[in-house]
């Protein structure tokens, strides 16, 4: 006879889960808005533990109070200006940084003259949820990327934390230390090629996530984020290893 009292409910299902906490905040627009100007307001921020995915709804006290719309499907609303009785567009945008979510709304006055805004409150309702599939717990692949300065105008610094994206494999890596790439010591060729630049500066990097998919072979082209310069080229000469 089976003793059911000792059996835990256990399945292999992976689901979205939520702590059931509903966060609320609001932004109120009013007063005068100058010609060709915009008014920007930002919520104080919801502090969220363990954010993964989320749903953010909004209502508009003048247009659809108590009727909440999904910001993924609709990222703008309207605010009446009473000077000439026209509707102004307000763009709504959410931002998650670390564990804090803020919502920014910006109303634009396309007229060249000032207008008076009807007092309008935008209310926001936020629920965070996550997947029960856990983030990868393996190790991150590591390696190095060589940077060649093919532009003779001067050296430059690439800070730690800079993102490199392999254009052959579409995998991203982050530099783990700051490097200074010196001025090119010789007259550059017409194209930025690996040879004869044997003294390229090596930057240690690690994959943005754990996983064996980041163990990629050498790649001749990387995009260096936030550092766009046609005279700079990045390559990896050896495979990345250690990702699991």
């Amino acid at each position: 006879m089976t003793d059911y009292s000792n059996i835990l409910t256990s399945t292999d299902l992976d689901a979205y889960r939520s702590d059931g906490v509903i966060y609320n905040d609001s932004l109120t627009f009013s007063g005068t808005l100058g010609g060709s100007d915009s008014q920007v307001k930002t919520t104080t921020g919801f502090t969220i533990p363990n954010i993964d995915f989320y749903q953010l709804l909004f209502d508009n006290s003048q247009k659809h109070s108590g009727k909440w719309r999904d910001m993924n499907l609709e990222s703008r609303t309207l605010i009446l200006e009473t000077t000439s009785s026209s509707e102004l567009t307000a763009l709504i945008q959410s931002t998650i940084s670390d564990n804090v979510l803020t919502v920014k709304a910006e109303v634009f006055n396309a007229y060249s003259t000032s207008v008076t805004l009807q007092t309008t409150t935008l209310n926001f309702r936020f629920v965070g949820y996550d997947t029960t599939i856990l983030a990868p717990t393996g190790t991150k692949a590591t390696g190095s990327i060589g940077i060649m300065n093919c532009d003779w105008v001067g050296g430059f610094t690439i800070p730690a934390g800079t993102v490199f994206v392999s254009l052959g494999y579409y995998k991203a890596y982050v530099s783990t230390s700051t490097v200074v790439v010196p001025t090119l010591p010789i007259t550059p060729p017409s194209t930025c090629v690996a040879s004869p630049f044997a003294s390229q500066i090596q930057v240690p990097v690690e994959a943005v996530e754990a996983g064996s998919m980041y163990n990629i072979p050498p790649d001749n082209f990387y995009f260096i984020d936030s550092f766009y310069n046609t005279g700079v080229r990045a390559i990896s000469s050896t495979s990345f290893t250690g990702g699991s």
Partner: protein
Amino acid sequence: MTSSVTSDRDYLEIFLDDDITISTGGSVDTDAEFPQTGQAGLNYGVRSVTHDLGLVPIVRAFYDPDKNGTWYNTRKLLGTGYQSVDEPWLTTVNTTTTTKLIINSDSVETDIPVYYRIYRFGDESVRTDERIDKIFLHEPAVAYLPAASDSNTPQHTVQSFPHGQSSSVLNTLEFSDDNKTWYGAGAFLNGGFDTASGPPGGPYVRTFYMTAIGYTDANNFYIWYEHNHPVPKVIFARYALDLKT
């Protein structure tokens, strides 16, 4: 890696879901009429679902705007101009008693497939008749896009990921410009005014932006990345796929 579901779980419980069709061209619903919505349109179709949950629920809604088996949960991007999106559009309006699904189209359309899933918070012991999502993949992605020639000519690229399922799947997607700060699919991440899009001092008609959306068909999950910045951009994404049934 998977996690066991135990009786003290706090996952989202599927309260209602259904495959429906919505035709546009009917009488105008006040919740869908300009200026109740920020997007004016010409033809509306509305379906109201009564849930009576007593609180505004979490709702995921998907539609097949081209009626070809490709499902979206955001506006469909066109990539043909500044923030260009295709119609018809899907919107949800949610109250403590009702979820209203609204389709907005330029011309009258019949039988646009829509699928919705309304959740309630799980706070009870497990019952055998409960339904929860079945997530089978949760992955990061990244794309590189060249510079746009001007802010009215966005760059876009599409990545496809075979999902290995024999039926339609659902997706949840977020994107990021730094792999740390994440935005909901379909949001236009504002990168400031393009001061070349208007007279000196403004007003300007365009901003720089980046965005990403996810969509699915019977074979693949797709991510559409788009931006109109004058420099190349890397756009990160993370997504989860779950079964529709």
